């Protein structure tokens, strides 16, 4: 993986993805090591983010590397009309690796073609978010002990949620069954379902969240955004149907874990936070280890 960019989860093979997860386990045991001393990582956030940027910066800082970059474009030459190409080439001169988030789809792929250093895509519009995918895989493997033969429920906005698309695609390499719970308007796109069919795996579609809770090993919640609905009445009809409450977890499997890419608004009721089945905050922490594994692999330090 040395010197390779990670733009889309499919850029890394199943074996390479598992290698990252194994390495992340090592970093979880020992997250502070001075192995990136002398390295400079650039975090270019053309669009705001809390978790992704902070966890990347924590990952690098704990390993002794230095960070340059920006968390919004207001104080940069982008405001003066600098092209993405120029910004990336210039930052390539100053850093050993670039971690970028950008509002436009495809921006990270393009950046990887003009940069002289590797790029890690930290989200390009509605397209890809591969490091979220890896940390989701890490969280599933850690809580279930395996990625194979699991019943995974995806709940909420399955149409626009880029983390759902990447994770479904990645999990098709591991004999999982997919339980897809969403309002009619926000069903998983057929392009993504094709990937499941291509691997001869099973998927089931539901509109009722309660149906999947007794069978799921993992319940991956997402936020339903009002602006996704063409008809506001439709939103009002479904908005409360996909809120997970503690009382609904009665009868669920002991090994069930609730995941969420965060930010959460109201789709997971706060009374679940203290339930041992709630895993979303630990999931966000796992992002640090996975990103440490990724950065050190790409820089060739590990």
């Amino acid at each position: 993986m040395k010197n390779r960019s990670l733009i889309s989860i499919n850029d890394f093979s199943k074996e390479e993805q598992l290698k990252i997860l194994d390495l992340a386990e090592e970093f979880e045991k020992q997250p502070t090591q001075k192995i990136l001393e002398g390295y400079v990582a650039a975090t270019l956030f053309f669009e705001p983010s809390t978790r992704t940027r902070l966890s990347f910066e924590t990952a690098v800082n704990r390993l002794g590397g230095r960070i340059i970059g920006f968390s919004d474009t207001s104080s940069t030459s982008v405001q003066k009309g600098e092209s993405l190409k120029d910004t990336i080439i210039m930052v390539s001169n100053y850093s050993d690796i670039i971690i970028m988030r950008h509002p436009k789809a495809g921006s990270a792929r393009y950046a990887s073609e003009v940069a002289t250093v590797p790029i890690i895509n930290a989200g390009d519009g509605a397209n890809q978010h591969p490091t979220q995918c890896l940390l989701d895989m890490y969280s599933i493997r850690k809580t279930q002990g395996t990625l194979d033969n699991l019943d995974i429920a995806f709940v909420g906005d399955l149409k626009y949620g880029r983390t759902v698309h990447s994770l479904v695609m990645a999990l098709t390499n591991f004999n999982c069954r997919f339980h897809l719970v969403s309002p009619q308007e926000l069903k998983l796109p057929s392009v993504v379902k094709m990937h499941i069919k291509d691997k001869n795996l099973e998927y089931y579609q539901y509109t009722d969240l309660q149906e999947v809770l007794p069978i799921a090993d993992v319940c991956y919640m997402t936020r339903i955004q009002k602006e996704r609905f063409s008809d506001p009445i439709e939103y009002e009809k479904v908005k409360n149907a996909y809120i997970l409450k503690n009382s609904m977890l009665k009868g669920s499997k002991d090994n069930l874990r609730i995941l969420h890419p965060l930010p959460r608004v109201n789709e997971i009721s706060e009374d679940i936070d203290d339930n041992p089945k709630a895993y979303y905050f630990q999931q966000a922490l796992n992002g640090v280890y996975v990103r440490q594994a990724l950065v050190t692999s790409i820089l060739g330090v590990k």
Partner: protein
Amino acid sequence: MTNQFDPRKELKVNAIENGTVIDHIPAQNVFQVIKILGLEGFDNQILFGTNLDSYKFGKKGIIKVSNRFFAPDEINKIALAAPSATLIVIRDYQIVEKTTVTIPDQILNIVKCFNPNCITNHENIPTKFTVVSKEDIKLRCHYCEKITSKDDISFR
């Protein structure tokens, strides 16, 4: 058979001595084909006609370029704008070769990405598509990974 294709009898646009005739272009795409082939900056004689009656298509367009012969790679670029096009090589007023176009595996810098949020629609970047289906024409953008389908294709 040869008489049927006699250019002096069949074609409303004047015959050429040597060069290439691109026939059966959809009438509305003639100017697009001229653009894709870069004929606007070409010095030789070019004749073209559009909205001509066609037995097969109703209306069609035709382009005749003197003293210019196209490599398959070059001509296949027009396949999306004119999938039904016939390519006729003329030497000394005679047809020496007649072929059709085929859709290439990659489409470079001709088509606009359908996704309004794609980076290629916001920065000065050549577009690049992989043809994922040649039958019903589906192009996957190399950058945003979205599919542009036949009905959504527009040219840059």
